[in-house]
């Protein structure tokens, strides 16, 4: 037991791992190894030479694995390194003959913040995603709680309808949404409000993962609260939500990141809008890569990409544990 504890510490400190489960099971692997070592001599009295061969093979295998992983990791981050070094490139133009620039400069960043509309795009995206994140999380959590805990007559039919709705490609109905927005917001249908409406209105459809999570929270808790006289609202807010930290973080994370990554809806809603200051980062940056702009703006694009990707990546890495839990939970339940 002590050994196992030590193993857990060891793995957590030195080499581990994404999640607690991962750490635990890494311990399992270690334990397995130990078990095997203790068992091996007892089985058919294996000869020393054979065991030496085994360990040699293991070392070889480990080395090979190490090499493969190192190579792959390098391959994996090359494009991102390319992005970063290109953002410091001094030579103008879209085409560069070499991976690393000859001339290093900060001008691209300076230009980004002084001569382009990028700061405006950035704040547009930021406030849109904050609003969306709040609304979407509220929607998703309340829908999934209702479906998971409350048995009402329309429950099954509603869940089935939502399942079917989710199977239509999301932007198939974009042109109809566009017309609806034009009717509802005749003065400014190509606005951030429209985008927020578009992002949030379909939010309830992705209740699946968090419903799966709520299903795993014991119902006995609800019943206990009920016996103590708590209303469903109180049970939800005071008992279930505090227990659901991981799924709340997952929902918030996903809904916060979505507007940063969306290109398709924003390009539809904002198509042909005269004021490019209304753009979000993805739309604005995509416009820099158009044929007539790319020569002038490519390095600026790289700088902007770094600025956009940094906080999102950091956020993701920081909350990765919850993301993995969400993905795994949702996938395994199907």
């Amino acid at each position: 037991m002590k050994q196992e504890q030590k193993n857990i510490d060891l793995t957590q400190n030195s080499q581990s791992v994404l999640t607690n489960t991962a750490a635990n099971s890494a311990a399992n692997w270690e334990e397995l190894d130990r078990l095997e070592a203790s068992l091996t001599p007892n089985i058919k009295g294996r000869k020393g030479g054979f065991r030496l061969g085994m360990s040699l093979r293991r070392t070889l295998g480990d080395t090979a694995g190490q090499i493969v992983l190192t190579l792959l990791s390098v391959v994996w981050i090359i494009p991102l390194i390319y992005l970063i070094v290109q953002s410091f490139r001094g030579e103008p133009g879209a085409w560069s003959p070499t991976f690393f620039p000859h001339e290093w400069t900060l001008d691209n960043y300076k230009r980004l913040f002084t001569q382009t509309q990028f700061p405006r795009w950035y704040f547009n995206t930021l406030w849109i995603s904050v609003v969306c994140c709040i609304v979407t999380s509220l929607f998703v959590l309340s829908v999934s709680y209702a479906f998971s805990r409350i048995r009402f007559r329309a429950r099954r039919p509603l869940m089935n309808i939502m399942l079917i709705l989710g199977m239509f490609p999301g932007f198939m109905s974009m042109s109809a949404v566009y017309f609806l927005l034009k009717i509802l917001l005749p003065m400014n249908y190509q606005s951030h409000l429209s985008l927020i409406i578009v992002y949030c209105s379909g939010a309830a459809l992705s209740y699946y993962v968090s419903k799966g999570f709520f299903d795993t929270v014991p119902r006995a808790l609800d019943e206990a609260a009920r016996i103590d006289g708590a209303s469903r609202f109180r049970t939800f807010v005071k008992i279930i939500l505090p227990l659901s930290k991981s799924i709340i973080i997952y929902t918030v994370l996903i809904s916060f990141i979505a507007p940063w990554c969306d290109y398709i809806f924003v390009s539809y809603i904002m198509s042909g809008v005269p004021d490019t200051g209304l753009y979000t980062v993805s739309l604005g940056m995509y416009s820099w890569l158009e044929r007539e702009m790319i020569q002038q703006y490519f390095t600026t694009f790289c700088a902007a990409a770094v600025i956009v990707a940094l906080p999102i990546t950091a956020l993701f890495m920081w909350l990765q544990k919850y993301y993995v839990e969400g993905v795994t939970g949702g996938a395994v339940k199907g």
Partner: protein
Amino acid sequence: MDVDYYGLSGAKRLTWRLRRAVTRGLKGIGGFFKNLIFGIKNFVTGIFRGVYELVRNFLAGNFVTKLSYFIMGSGHVFRGQAVKGMIYFALQVLFTLYTVFFGGNYLSMFFENFFTGGNIGRTETYISDIWDDELNEYLKIAGDNSFHILLYGILSLFVILFFVLCYVASVKESYKLEEMKMIGKRPSGIRKEGAELLDGKFHVTLLSLPMAGLFLFTVIPLFTMILIAFTNYDAGHEVPERLFGWVGFENFRNMFSGTSKLGDTFRRVLSWTLIWAFLATFTSYFIGMLLAILINRRGIRFKKLYRTLLVTTIAVPQFVSLLIMSKMLDSGGGGFGTGGGIITQWIEQIFGYHQQFGLKIFDTRVAIILVNLWIGVPYSMLLCSGILMNIPADLYESARIDGASPARRFFKITLPYMFFVTGPYLITQFIGNINNFNVIYLLSGGGPGDNLLYSDGAKGTDLLITWLYKLSLGVDRNYKLASVIGILVFAISAVLSLIIYNRSSAVKGEDNFQ
């Protein structure tokens, strides 16, 4: 898995499994239709029963209850639920106003040529012979807008449905109030009803707002777009200048026709979509799984570092990572067309092959699948790591004691377990890849084009979904085709989802994987 199975040889096992998969799939689809018919039957009998009950209550009720059948909420007002009664009454007034001044007109135009075919709307925009001095041209007289008629028609149908539901609820409550009064009970006040919304009817509170959003901005647009598939709405019938009209199943016939260029294009795009989804799903799944196993190996060091490096591609927003990839692969033709992508240069230096991303369909497709690995492998690695950890360690232990080689352990324990657990995930992922807009659109934009093979704006690496996007925006817009494609994508996803549904219900019976 029954005993017969173990008596079979390798090849026969495969056919056995295939046969089982097919029968299960068919059973699932059959079960779905059985449920559907059963549901419809229940629905119809429910309506009949409801109507019967309403008539019976009307006949049995007293004057106030009878009045509430004509003036909604009157029953509530007279029996101590004034606020609720007023809300019902306001609803009735609003509905009447809506129908008289707005919805009725649109509904009549909506259904005018619905069964016979023909234009939606009566007058087309035309240029009159009245000269407008301000604009310096002849005055334009605006006609009907077919799209608005369609949209408002659907909206009105749903408004009517909603109103009918409210009406039924109100008269039922009214009758109940009468009964309560007869036995001397007091109806609950508005405050208590409000408190009930946080407790017994908490689901109403939780669901109403999300459902309203879903309804207004997903359901109504979706119904409208589905109907577009049965019209001739395209660039030649663009609203508001022109009208479009009902054409029945003509668009579907054109899409599936064996001789037309459109039919050819559709089959090409569809087959590439399926090939792509298959390859993208399975390549990233297997490589991700192998990587997860490798990283979880005991002797490997710097696990966390490797994981972090590999996972960065999920974290970086796709429009950044894919666009930069597209630039790196650029060979001068497609993509951004500036040429000299760094990867293109490397491949030329190392292999002496000038890859033509965005110029040759085959090269582009290979590149897309490889780039998708870059995005997709970390994702499935994360997923597989989590699940691999959960494989009971005693399985491996006993296999080792029995002297099974690592390869054998992989094929006999790891793989079956993974398939068993991640089966639903694989199908979800397959559906996700059918709809994978980002990877295609941001990498190649669907190109390269080939006018001999493709028509109607489709290009060599277009999936159905990117084709749909192009058809609903820009120069190639053809809304009717976009709508048909949307319905087909739905059909594919629906069939696959039915398989998942069937699988997971089949799984429930089997407690352990075999």
